[in-house]
């Protein structure tokens, strides 16, 4: 029998991998998007685990919404990426520092 804590441990491992990916990754923005997806996946896992063990379907319905929004978000993110590549010729993260004060 798989316990609730196993799911939580798995999701926190995935979350931390995503987080670490955001911090450590210095190459390109696609990696960033992928890490954000990992974090979302971790959250979804949590939702489903709690929903299953708590006997409340609301959590699983939430996950559907999150998946939809995440898909839309990735679509927009990739579109922005394409435009950015066109205008700058690079999707390197270190180049995108126009906000520097």
């Amino acid at each position: 029998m798989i316990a609730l804590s196993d799911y939580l441990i798995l999701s926190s491992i995935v979350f931390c991998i995503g987080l670490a990916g955001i911090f450590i990754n210095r190459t390109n923005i696609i990696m960033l998007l992928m890490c954000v997806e990992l974090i979302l996946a971790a959250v979804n896992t949590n939702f489903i685990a709690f929903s299953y063990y708590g006997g409340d379907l609301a959590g699983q319905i939430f996950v559907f919404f999150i998946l939809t929004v995440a898909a839309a978000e990735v679509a927009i993110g990739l579109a922005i990426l394409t435009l950015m590549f066109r205008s700058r010729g690079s999707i390197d993260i270190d180049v995108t520092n126009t906000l520097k004060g």
Partner: protein
Amino acid sequence: MINTYLIIVLAPLFGSIIVGLAGNRLGRKASHSITILGVAISTALSLFVFNHHVLNDGDIFNQNLYTWMQIGGLNISVGFLVDNLTALMLVVVSFVSLMVHIYTIGYMHEDKGYTKFFSYISLFTFAMFTLVISNNFMQLFFGWEAVGLVSYLLIGFWHHKESAVQANLKAFLVNRVGDFGFLLGIAMVLMFFGTLDYAETFSQKDQIIGQTLFGGVSAITVVCLLLFVGAMGKSAQVPLHVWLPGSMEGPTPISALIHAATMVTAGIFMVSRMSPLFELSDVALTVVMVIGAITALFMGLLGIVQNDIKKVVAYSTLSQLGYMTVALGVSAYSVAIFHLMTHAFFKALLFLAAGSVIVALHHEQDIRKMGGLRKKMPITYVTSLLGTLALIGFPGFAGFYSKDMIIEAVHYSDLPFAGWVYFAVILGVFITAFYSLRLLFLVFHGESRLDSHTEEHVHETAPSITVPLVLLAIPSVLIGYFTIEPMLFGGWLENGIFIDSSHHAVAKLESHFHSAFSLITHSVMTLPFWMMIGGGLTAWVFCIYRTDWADLIQSKFKRINYVLNSLYGFDRFNEIVFVRGSLKLGNLLWKISDMTIIDQLLVNGSARFARYVGAFIRPIQTGYVYHYAFFMIVSLMLVLGWVLIASDYSFFS
């Protein structure tokens, strides 16, 4: 009756507005006709009102016409109070104003601002009417400020002249000082009585007796002195007199109307109107009397050394206003009003005559360049002579009665310093005779000192100038003889003036008075008469008999001459203390509060602060997305951690 009063007040206003707005289109003739018609209507109705109130004992008219504003329980209204005092003032103001209007046709006929001038003097007449007919302090103050405004406009009428602009500014500023005191006085009346209506104020005047301010100063004294400060400004009493000689920069008609006959007597009128209040404070009355005596004596002295024809008459006006103020101080209000009236006629006459000379000589005002004009300008000469005799108080003339009564009233007064004041006013008679006759001799008698070009062209001035002179000469001679008895002792002014029973001056005057004629016969045995003769003889000696003696005296008494010529240093004192003082204070405030505190510290300081803070925080903004994300996560963890700790681990339990 109410419509009559309204027409008296409003007719000049309408004339002024019409001519002021449409003067250029109406043309000169229509402009002066309209304004003169307005004032003539007022004059006729004033005489009617005078007849109704004074001669036929009409009831006092006291009514609010219009509520201007209402603040809490305080009603500020426009209202008329017409008693004998008002009726008399209406007649004096409207008559002199009418004469000046007519005179202006001749005097200003070459001036570009002809129609504007008529609009202004009509506006002045309206303002003066509002002042004298008012039944409350607020409307009085309105009229007070309005006459001040018109006076300012007219002193600076020839605004292309630098000196005229400076003189009107000076007049305005000095009057501000007086008006400030006046306003404080009105505020204190409101504070103690809760009303601004004359009748209501006077009916509860007893409740202020015994009240004190600032730990021990009698409240009524403070009120009266503050009100008197206003009178000092408007009626040009020392030390607020400095504006009046300067006001001679204006055209002569307004010197006659505003700065001699009517506006400057507003202070005298106001104090008489407030007699129920002033009677309560002997201290205030003493101050009034002493200030008046100082003005009467010392301003008269200055008249001796002046060489500008208008300035001599101006200093004589100051001196005569001093006499009126002395009369107020000794509680002889009716005598002050009597002198106000006679003075209005003969001083307007003297000014207009001076203006006639000025016009004839093409705007030459220096009396050292005149002389021998009596044959060339007979009407002006005769009227000037009559005016001068009235001014110096020659027995029988108007000024004789009023001045003699003032001197006698001082004699009978019980106030402290009355002895000194008596001495001052007696000496003043000598001085008055001296400078007046000096002026007359230098202008009309002796050798002609005109330049040959002017000499050929001098002739008597136009009828529009000489007719008002003649019309003013008549009351200057006769009015004293006919009005002294009813006005001072016959109760003409009884319902407008209140005299406390402890002040005996007028009562004693009455007990010594027999008839107007007996005063003349009696006068040869009195000191003022011989002082006047002495002053006249001195003037004759210096100006006709031995003209070189004047220079001799001048070189012998250099110091006195210097003091007189520098006008006692009032102007210099004001220049150094007030003008430069306020300049310095302004500089100081500009540098400290404006430049340092506001500009440097507040405005530039906040900008500088933002810049410093920005320089300090800027490195945090690296522009890299992962730095921002890192900050977000770390702060989120900190906040969550704090929430967990703060909630006492309840999350886990």
